[in-house]
């Protein structure tokens, strides 16, 4: 039972973290130009 009290918050917390990360990424426009990003990753920085 004590194990559960530690593990369940950790599990839910990690899940929520992933959810927040996605929502942040979506809001900041990271899914707007998927084709372009695929190409940009190969470019040298200036």
């Amino acid at each position, binding site marked *: *039972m004590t194990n*559960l009290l530690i593990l*369940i918050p950790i*599990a*839910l917390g990690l*899940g*929520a973290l*992933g*959810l927040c990360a*996605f*929502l942040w990424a*979506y809001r900041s426009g990271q899914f*707007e*130009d*998927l*084709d*372009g990003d695929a*190409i*940009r990753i*190969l*470019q040298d920085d*200036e």
Partner: protein
Amino acid sequence: MSCCIGVTPDQAADFIGSPDALRREEFRASGVALDDDSVRYVLAAPAIHCAACIQTIERGLKRVQGVRSARVNFSTRRVMVEADAAMAEPFQIVETLEKLGYKAELFDLSGELTDGSAVTASLIRALVVAGFASANVMLLSVSVWSGADGTTRTLFLYLSALLAVPATLYAGQPFYRSAWSALRSGRLNMDVPIALAVLLTLGLSVYEATIGTGESWFDASVSLIFFLLIGRVLDHLMRERARGGVEQLTRLAAKGAMRIMPDGSTLYVPVDEIRPGMRLLVAVGERFAVDCRLADGTRTDVDRSMATGESLPVSVSAGAKVEAGAVNLTRSVEVEATADAGHSLVSEMVRLMEAAEQGKASYVRLADKLATLYAPLVHILAFSTFAGWMLVTQDWHAAIRAAVCVLIVTCPCALGLAVPIAQVVGASILMRRGILVRNGSAFERMAEVRQAVFDKTGTLTLPHLKLGAGGIDDAALAAAAGLASNSRHPLSQAVTALAAGRGVQPLSVTDVGEIAGAGIEGRIGDMAVRLGRRDFAAAVATGASARAAGEDEATLWFAGAGFALQPLAVEAELRPDAEATLREFQAGGITSHLLSGDTAASVEALRARLPIAAGHAFASMSPAAKVERIAALGREGGPVLFVGDGINDAPALGAAHVSMTPAAASDVGRANADFVFLNASLAGVIDAWKLSRAVVSFVKQNFAIAIAYNTIAIPLAMFGGVTPLIAAIAMSSSSIIVVGNTLRLRLRFPDPKALDVAAGAAAARQERPTTLEVPA
């Protein structure tokens, strides 16, 4: 990277050469002021096509004084530039972009701020929240079902409630809102039983978890929302693609014109302020802003393809009427406006198209037809279950529980997925065959088609002009190509292409001059040579003119000192598979028709070459006449498929029951068609037709599966035999079966061989070198 060679400096020079006074004003007006003293401009640059393009543009633009940032969106082929508000000449941005070799189209940001993308974003947020909650609640529920008891069970139930209640309330909003608006207007839609089921389940679960038996349904309420949202998101994405036709056409109309003031100076006036009688100056390469008449002593060539769909320019002289939207090709002219913007051809077409879009909005989709039957049935079942239990047991709790069970198992998860999943699978199959689907309900409409109507130029025939090889000898062709290389007239380009095809080296020609409406002349050494209309060329001919067969059809003549008068016949080249496509339609019991803005003689000549019955070809059709004819055909002989490509076809594409257009078509055409095919071959039309029929039959199969599942589950639920575990299994398995069944479509339509795809892509590139992208 080598692929960038496709955009030559020569092409770029063409755009820089045109007088930019108008575009300068329009570009300045298109900027949106931001808070930090900067202005945001968006440009569409369809020629962006590789990694090097991104770098070239971004680096090039950042070097311009006053530009703060420049970012290319590769997916939409747009460039977003933020510049200082104090920047003296923002048009430098456009000029720089075009100097780099990318034609820039001005982009009005105001039209872009539609609510469509906001809806997509809120649906996706709801989907991920529901997904997160349902996965976690399901994990907790599994341990409850497998025998957790005592405090562990209570803890898990409370945790489930903590996750499920906010998630269901938040993620279910699209359904609650739609159900509420339906109820307020006195209707029932599919969302009413959904909202009822979800909210009642949630309420019952909270009651059970706190004071009841502890048999809770939290997982059912969140996973219902999750499955339904998947269907909703897919459906919304398909619908989103259908937008934007009318906006495209209004952008084609010039936004203003240079007015010639009484004192001779010129002044930019917005199109709304142009009144009949005003004198305007139209430079080469500009569109006529309103319907107008050419002033005395002027003549030029205009591209009227917007009205007629014909790519051959027309020569006009003083007093001739030119409609708004036509492009001035060879000489700057002074014109007198004869109508204001509200009465021009473009606004007439916008009206036609808006009417057509409204007509389509009233189309009732299969899923909606089913919903009108299904929703009342569900309510009657749930209510009679409740009434029955009350009568027999007089137990409120048991009666509500049974009624909620009925609502849960009848909740149309599988039904909600049945249509969108079939459309998405269908669209991906067509995508691999070079056909883009722009509209989800297009499959349903395509499957109902009884008649097919084709446009002539650019649809049944290939869009580029081709000259017949016979009639002219190599020496004359070399001289003609030398002349033609100095002009950007489409016919001149056809002459250069013919010379290149025959391996003839163009001669160098001096003193080249273009005479509007007649042709081009120049000198080779001291010999005068001319290319153009017959009487124009004949004036310098020496020797007897060669009388070749079919020369009467020739629209272009070449002659010169030392050269006899020789014809260059313009040929219409049939699209590959045009005849086979029409034969397949014939075999499938579909009547074919031909509609064209061209003359009766050339339409009849084409009809005779194809399996189209006499009397089914209509010539000299204006955009409005095409719409009328299609409506008339639709009334007489059933739903009509229209395949067309021109700007003049846009209203007809919108008016037909379902429509299709080649990728080389005008942007407006592509924005208004339901299907766009990228290959040169017309066989795509047959592919789309056959696949649409398969998609609809799979949708019906999916409905059958979902209903069969319900006929088993409903009696079970009505008699109280459904536990949360059974409901969860039944609900997910029916959705999975529907998805699995639809994937069988892939087996029915295997991908074409790799070779065909490559050939198709090559053909498509040839047809339209830069853009294959469909307007978003």
